[in-house]
């Protein structure tokens, strides 16, 4: 058996989609971490032009408390508090992908912009020889989609984890997966 995959799931703010998947995948026993790629952690606010913005590194718990304090009813209704509550049970705080030096075998992203940022970030590093596959699955940033997305990612990871030789098989797997999930998939290969 090859060494188990080391996974990263990444969305913009490391709140909803990545954490949903993180939750899901870690429950299945995969080695998974989650990240965001945005400049700041942004959460919807009282109005569209007034989002809640936090620095990466702000503990989920702090954000939870902050929102709780700001408008308990609103944030309970839109599910943010519930989400934050889940998040703080998984890990302490949102992490920014650009700041980590960890290396992964497979990086899953949740939207094209994130995918671009991941690539940009990786390309800026000293290019070495360890390959990393980056796969993007388009997931809208809402709770329902996040859950569906987490399922999809789980399927994909399950397939990949079973492969003896991921580098060789990934092209085909992605094709099969794409046919099944009916979502556009992006994939590329970079190196640490």
């Amino acid at each position, binding site marked *: 058996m090859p060494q188990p995959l080391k996974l990263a799931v990444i969305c913009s703010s490391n709140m909803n989609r990545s954490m949903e998947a993180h939750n899901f995948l870690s429950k299945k026993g995969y080695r998974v971490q989650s990240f965001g790629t945005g400049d700041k952690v942004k959460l919807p606010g009282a109005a569209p032009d007034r989002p809640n913005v936090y620095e990466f590194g702000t503990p989920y718990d702090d954000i939870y408390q902050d929102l709780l304090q700001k408008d308990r009813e609103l944030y309970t209704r839109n599910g943010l508090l519930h989400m934050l509550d889940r998040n703080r049970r998984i890990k302490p705080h949102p992490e920014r992908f650009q700041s980590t030096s960890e290396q992964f075998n497979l990086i899953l992203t949740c939207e094209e912009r994130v995918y671009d940022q991941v690539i940009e970030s990786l*390309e800026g590093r000293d290019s070495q020889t360890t390959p990393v596959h980056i796969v993007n699955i388009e997931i809208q940033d809402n709770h329902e989609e996040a859950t569906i997305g987490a399922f999809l990612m789980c399927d994909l990871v399950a397939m990949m984890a079973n492969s003896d*030789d991921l*580098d*060789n098989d990934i*092209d085909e797997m992605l094709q099969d997966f794409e046919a099944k999930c009916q979502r556009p998939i992006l994939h590329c290969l970079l190196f640490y």
Partner: protein
Amino acid sequence: MDRVKIEKGTSTEERIVELLNSAATDAGDQSRVDHLIKIQELIIHQEPALLDNFVDEITAFQHDRAADVRKTVVGFIEEACKKDPELLGKVMHSLQLLLGDTSIAVQKRVIQALTQLYKVTLLWLARAPSVTQLMEKTWNMLNQMKLQIAKMIDHDNDGVRTIAVKFYEMLIVSQTYPEPDSIRKENEFSLEEIPLTLKVARPRKLEEEAQLMLEDLMKYHGSAHISSANLMACMGSLTHIAKSRPQFLDRIVTAMEMLHANLPPTLSKSQVNSVRKHLKLQLLAILKHPASHERSSNIKTILGDLGATPQEINKALPSAEEIAKHPRRSERAEDSKSGPAAKRRKVEADPVPPIRENTKEKALAITEEFIVQRLTTKGAADIVIEALPHITSSMPPHFPTIYTPISDAGTPNQIRYVARLMASQMTNAGIGPGVAEAGYVPKTGNDFEDDDDDMDDIPGAAVITPGFRGGEDPESAKPGVASVQPPVQIRARQRALKLAEIAKPLTPQMNESMARSALQRVLKAERTAMLGGVAANRQKILASLATLFSGDFKDLVLEYIMADPRLRIELAFSWLYEEYSMVMGFCRQSSIVKDEFRNAAVDSYTSVFCSLVNELKKQIDLKEREVLLSRLFHESPNIPEQGVSILRTMLCEDAKLVDISIQILRQLVHRPSKQLIYLNVLLEISSHENESIRSAVLSCLTDLYDRGALRRVIEDYALMCLKFLLLEEPPALLCGAEKGRSEVVTTWTEEIIKACLYLFLAVLRSNHKLIHELAVVYVQANADIKRKILRMVEGPVEGMGMESPELLKLVETCPKGAETLLIRIIHILTDKYPPSPALVERVRNIYQQRVPDVRFLIPVLNGLGKKEVLSVLPKLIKLNPDVVKKVFSRLLGTQGDSTATYPSPLSPTELLIALHNIDSTQCDMKTIMKATSICFMERTVYTQEVLAVVMQQLMDQNPLPTLLMRTVLQSLSLYPRLSGFVMNILQRLIVKQVWKQKKVWEGFIKCCQRTKPQSFAVILQLPPQFLQELLNTSPDLKTPLVEHVMAFTENQRMHIPKLTMDVLNGIAQFQAETEELHHEDSKEKETGSPEPIESAFHGDIEPPAPGDS
């Protein structure tokens, strides 16, 4: 818990030992890995000093059955070497083993490690004060692995290919020089770090290699079968290279442009998306680099097409200041001439030229220009109308995703861009004016396999590699549709097409039979190819096929050629040259041609050559057979040994081919490298039994000999043959089928003697010096051989002429025992021409000083003085009558058929007189008489006038020569008309008192008898005493004489003296006494030799019988 205690209480070293032991004994794969990782951690990060101690123990795990353990070992080696490069020498071998590991994962890991360690090794070499043997060995090993990895770009496994691409990238970056604007990353290595003096790895060589590898990588990047992951890895690598080494940026941007216009047809929809996206990102990255400034408009156009927003593009564009800082490439090239880095750039200035890329770019540019000029609104509309029927009725599903509205439609920029798109598609498809002008031939399908040496392993592969190309229609090249794949293809294919997986190897038989039928089709296509104007290509194909494949193919092609050799001889030649190229290794990329291979190739070449010649030889009816044969020999790149023996048999066996074979050989002899071989063939055949063959060869050889080139060899061979004559029996060398003597001759027959001499005598004509050798051999040879030599020497000696200094020298120095040869030679020389004074002089010397054999003088008689001739005359006439006859005919100038009259020292008259005057002590009468008889036989010389003069002169001598009367008698019998003259002589004899000389007197009486009745008048004038004697001797005269007198008139009778009358009447008895006295006197004289004179006076003028000696 004991273990924990021990670990705590002991040093790191002991812990490592502990861990090693557990790693060795632990059954679980994963735990072994864990142990090893722990060890690695301990050694490398905590106690690097221990590295050296444990590296062997750890590398021992490379044989572990678990791939993961082996992988870990590789990881350890990598880390260890990074820490301490000195270990490289120790571990390189392990890496080499592991590179050939059965597990793909291990292989990949090794390549990854090497990608790092390659740089480390180079640095290690570069920094070492001196390169040790170990270092060199390590480097060589690494180079071997490098080649192995370079090949892995075509590996079956996608992942391996990907890693190999990265290795390429590292190699290209490491083995080139950075430019001022290169983006440098830490840990990067470049040629700058390698001193120019490093012998094992010359920077220049390395740079060349990098250029080649870049070339390969770009080819791979543009190949049609590349998988999406590989393609993206490749793009990433190229981008990295472009940024690190801006000197390649131009080419890489072009490559990406081409890719954009011709995406691999095997990609699926989402892969196309990913690739396009990736391409966009890569181009943005390149755009950020200031060096891309010159190509920025191209890049921007593509980016726009790939869906990048103007904002994105602008964000990526470097600031104006950065561009300003960055001089234009063309200017920089100028600057650099005087710059500090001039030397280094000079090295760069002439890298291996990327010819193929250049022609491609050129073709592209030409076609682009061509399209720009024609892409008017009307033209575009026409194309669209033309293309409409080809467009499917429903929109391909992925069209909307990749379609971006054209913002600047109709602007010159956009027109140019569309033109470029179309141009790149057309160029790739091999059409358009640029293709024709620049001579670019698009490669189809597997570019890479062409460059590999797969061909050598599986001959069939070269023939049955299918060209794989998507069927893009260049006409449909409209913006936005450019890279759209035909939709049907997409839907039908659920998975990416992986050729390597689908293609199953054919069975060998199948392979063979398919190849054979392919060959047969090509063979049949002669007319078609001719009409199609590709006859030359067809010929080349056939030649290659015949060369690369085994016997059957060769037979087929051979048969084909021989069906019409006249027209197909060119094919034969190109085949031969192809084979020859194999022999010389021109066809192979690697310069190391294995001996084994070479031998096989040589054999193959030889057999092809021989079978061509043999088959051609069999075509007896072919008119051009000889011409073609000679072309085969002359125009083939090499003639194998067997070819030479064929030539030899050709020469000996086929009468019709003799001339041509000799001509061929003669030409070939001028080829320096093998001239001795060819010459030897000629030499061996020079003693051939068959006259026509031999003479042809001999004339060829003498001609060669005269030219002087191979004089020595020919001469030596001739002498060798000559010296065979001294052997007991003929050497076997002279016999054998190729000499025309199939039976072995063991005795010196005439033929075999001749065989030894042919060549020598032929050469002798040109080199007179050799005559001395002949003389030497002659002396020692046996009688049979001597005789043969004497007979054969005639021709050559005649040719030499008597002026030849060597001949004269031989005459001068005549070796003992060679006299007969010498005489023969002199004879030959003087047979037709008068002897030259020089020759005469030498012969005279030899006669006088060394060999007093008069025979020497015979040939030169005419050159001797009168006295000399006279002095040897007695000796001469003693020789064999035949010889005497020859001597005389020489002296008389009547010899042979020669009409040349040359002055003889003796006139005929003088000769005859001389003969008469020979002293009888020197020579007996009989001999002299015979000699004179010979003279008389020459009636053309001794006419009656001559004889009259002779007699006249003899008459004047005193005493009269003994043979006078014999001569008179003979003259008379030859010329009866001389009788009057004879009467005169008789009369004068009386005056001279002929009776005093007994012999003459006897002759006189005979003469009188013979000439009666005319002689009566003379007889009557004799003194009575002698008249009586005469009548006594020949009583039969008496009665006619008396009657004669009686018939006189009285008056006449008066004149007869009284005494005479008395005698007539029988009165004079008184004379008896004197007569008796006279008789006794004569008897005394006769005692010496009475008989001969008797016979002499019987006047036998018949020539002596031939056998008479």
